């Protein structure tokens, strides 16, 4: 019979997993956004035609 892990160990595990997965989650969110006119700004989604560089004209 294995003992239950203490709460402190569970909290450390939760924080560690969130630090591991937060950047990956951010990548997923950013993958749905578009580059803004001044660089990375996922709040701005330009509607102009796509340029060869991957950017869009505003």
């Amino acid at each position: 019979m294995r003992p239950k892990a203490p709460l402190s160990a569970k909290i450390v595990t939760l924080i560690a997993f969130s630090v591991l997965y937060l950047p990956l989650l951010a990548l997923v969110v950013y993958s749905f956004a578009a580059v803004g006119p001044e660089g990375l700004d996922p709040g701005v989604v330009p509607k102009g035609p796509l340029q060869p560089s991957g950017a869009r004209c505003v």
Partner: protein
Amino acid sequence: MGSSAPARASRPPLLLLLPGVGWFLWFLLIPLAIVAVYSLAQKGTYGGVVYELSWTNYQRAADWIYLRILFNSLRLAAFTTVSCLLIGFPMAYVMATASPRVRSLLLILVVIPFWTNFVVRAYAIKVVFGEQGPINQLAMGIGLLKEPFQFANTEFAVWLGMVTNYLPFMVLPLYVAIDKFEFSLLEAARDLGASPIRAFFRVLLPLTKQGVISGSIFVFTPALGEFVIPDLLGGSRTMLIGNLITDQFLKTRDWPFGSALSLIVILIVMASLAIYLRMEAKES
């Protein structure tokens, strides 16, 4: 004939050793020998190697500027290893004591970050913790910070990048060690009056020492030579020995000095391992 057959059976099959020995010889020992020869040579005028053998590259490496970079690298690698151990041990313990279903899920969750390229992960960390990133925005939104926290190009960023990158290397060996541990020994220690902390330090930790050692080696060795994460997250402010060696080979084109620095790093890692193993042998 009767006596020679068992002798033949117990003889190591030398042919089976050939691929492994050949691999080590061709891809490890011969390149290392070339690096050792390069380290004694001199840099040519146009970046080539001039075979005038001397110890000047090693004397140059003993300069205070390079010693400080080496010391910083050792400090950061040691700090990363200790951090991974302090975070990884509770994680491995939670995994080993969880129900089989949760255990499998947690194991998969530890491995999944490996599916992403670590350069992409380093950039993702930079974005998340950056000045315009969600963490800073949230902290400023709730009034915790007045100005955004400077994350990029700091030693903290390098440390965080290295810990998130190497944490699975620590967790997996620790999990294997704790999973094999006989938990009734902990119960016995508690029955005999040991506090949870005493039971941890006197029973659990010594009996899972092999996992701690393996994990520490898996983290410390690559962390000491790391050059991509310091480059991406530390910027030009953080110069570690890995960056210095890379610069010698790719920018300065001083291959002999780069080779000398590489050999010094290899010797440091080997010496620390040898000292540790000798101490272990003495203890046992």
